[in-house]
């Protein structure tokens, strides 16, 4: 059962990765200049106030000691308390996670659909002007990073032709009768399309900004892979059976061409999730990334620690998902 073995191996590496990330972040945020205590001191506080506060947050001990205490808490599901809001880190982080997941998945869907259509169109019309146009567009999309696309979109659809919301996740005047924070998802389940439309009009631009570079990568890789596949013998054989170009691309070439693209898209998707940090800031979208930047500004050590661990966990999960999908799509791995 190689799949089971792979899963087990993946589980082990996940723990090792998370532990490593925890150690590195823990040390780094404590040795860089700037400390949380200084930021919360009222004017005129004395030496002993500082010592008391340090003791309160456990910052008076050595870094290894602090780490062990933190780790002990984590093993019991306690990620500490935010210094700025005094709420449990876990609670804070989980409250923002759905917003970021929805944004990332929306961006992924846009990227896959747009990239897929471009790749198929480019393959169908290969060697002509359309393919050349697609290549140029891909090159442009890739030479501009996601946050600059965000600015361009804000200028275009927020200022010049204001059709989308440029700030926040949902309009403040809207009641949210939801039981989870997956607003977009739940608005569909509850058939509240008014709320859904408001959410989409907020999410569309940040999602598009994140999606543009990934869409270009998908378009480029998949088109390349499709074009190579189109020369293979089984494609030629299908043509002799009487099938036309469209059929041959979609049924013969695509299922094989997808595989090499999939692995790379997985890696690129983790970059996209990383990109949410700045994009959320740009669009004042209340997700994890925005929270992360606030936490760094406030030197909220426990919160930074918690967010980084969560991001690391998401990355490993994405990789696992890619592995499973690859195995599911590849008949050579499906059996035996």
């Amino acid at each position, binding site marked *: 059962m190689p799949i089971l073995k792979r899963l087990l191996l993946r589980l082990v590496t996940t723990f090792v990765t998370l532990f490593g990330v925890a150690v590195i972040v823990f040390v780094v945020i404590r040795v860089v200049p700037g400390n949380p205590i200084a930021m919360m001191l009222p004017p005129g506080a004395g030496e002993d106030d500082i010592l008391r506060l340090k003791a309160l947050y456990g910052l008076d001990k050595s870094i290894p000691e602090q780490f062990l205490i933190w780790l002990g808490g984590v093993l019991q599901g306690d990620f500490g308390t935010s210094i700025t809001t005094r709420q449990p880190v876990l609670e804070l982080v989980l409250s923002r996670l759905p917003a970021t997941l929805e944004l990332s998945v929306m961006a992924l869907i846009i990227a896959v659909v747009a990239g897929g259509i471009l790749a198929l169109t480019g393959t169908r019309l290969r060697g002509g002007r359309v393919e050349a146009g697609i290549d140029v567009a891909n090159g442009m999309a890739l030479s501009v990073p996601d946050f600059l696309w965000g600015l361009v979109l804000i200028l275009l659809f927020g200022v010049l032709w204001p059709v989308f919301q440029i700030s926040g996740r949902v309009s403040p005047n809207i009641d949210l009768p939801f039981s989870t924070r997956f607003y977009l998802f739940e608005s569909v389940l509850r058939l509240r399309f008014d709320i859904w439309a408001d959410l989409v009009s907020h999410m569309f631009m940040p999602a598009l900004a994140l999606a543009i570079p990934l869409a270009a990568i998908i378009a480029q890789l998949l088109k390349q892979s499709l074009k190579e596949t189109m020369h293979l013998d089984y494609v030629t054989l299908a043509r*002799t059976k009487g099938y*036309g170009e469209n059929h041959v691309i979609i049924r013969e070439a695509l299922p094989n061409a997808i595989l090499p693209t999939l692995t790379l898209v997985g890696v690129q998707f983790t970059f996209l999730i990383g990109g949410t940090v700045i994009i959320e800031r740009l669009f004042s979208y209340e997700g994890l990334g925005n929270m992360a930047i606030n936490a760094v500004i406030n030197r909220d050590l426990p919160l930074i620690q918690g967010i980084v661990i969560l991001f690391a966990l998401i990355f490993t999960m994405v990789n696992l998902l890619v592995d499973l999908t690859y195995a599911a799509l590849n008949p*050579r791995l499906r059996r035996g």
Partner: protein
Amino acid sequence: MSAFLTIEGLNVSLSGVLPILRSVDLAVHAGEVRGLVGESGAGKSMIGKAILGTLPRALRIESGRILLDGEDLQRMRPRDRRRLIGAKAALIPQDPLTALNPARRIGPQITDRLVDILGWRRRAALSRALELLDEVRITDPERVMRAYPHELSGGMRQRILIASAFAAEPRLIVADEPTTALDVTVQKQILRLIRDMQARHGTALLFVTHDLGVVSKICQTLTVLYGGLVLEDTTIEEFFAAPGHPYSAALLGATPKYTDPHGSLTPVPQSVIDAANAQLDAFDRARRQ
């Protein structure tokens, strides 16, 4: 009797610059087994591809006609042409390891043409496929239909491709070196299988090969190609008794004798090659004028 396949004056070039096929004439009658021989690069595969409508994009048909069952392929709408070819002709490819789609199960790869192009009912196509797999002597056809290509050996896959080629009862099959990619032991079985299937179904066969030994065993007629030019078009008896072109004779001398497989071989002499090249030049010059 008019032939099932007639190629007349077919000129194919690489982007209009380099001639690949030079005014090729070739006919295959119903039920006839015609060998197509020539050294590597002579254009044998391109003739097959021209018939089946799968010439590489860089290659262009400059002039000439290809008549399949009396229909001029070049004058048909692309979709009708594809469907006519799919219904009346088929290919047995060279390399069974690359000719089956690794992402699809075997069953649909045999039945798809019947269902999508010829409009059969799925169930009828399925039982036809099982019948054919049985005919090419594959044991447990039901399991094979559900298998993926990588689960089967090269010989098995070539049997499947043969079954698939015969599925729609085509009137013409192009077999492009169907045994060169196989083990020597399997080669003989596959060759015999193709011959038996051909005889049983009465299908015309255009058999591309460099192997004159194979030609002597299964073909009735023969076309010798050099540099895209037909040097000789003859029957097997005549060819082996008295080859009609010095190049053919040299080719025959360069082939191991069936009766004496270890006898000495003479490579094609340079003088013969020079003469053949001169013939190509003369052809090109005549055509340019």
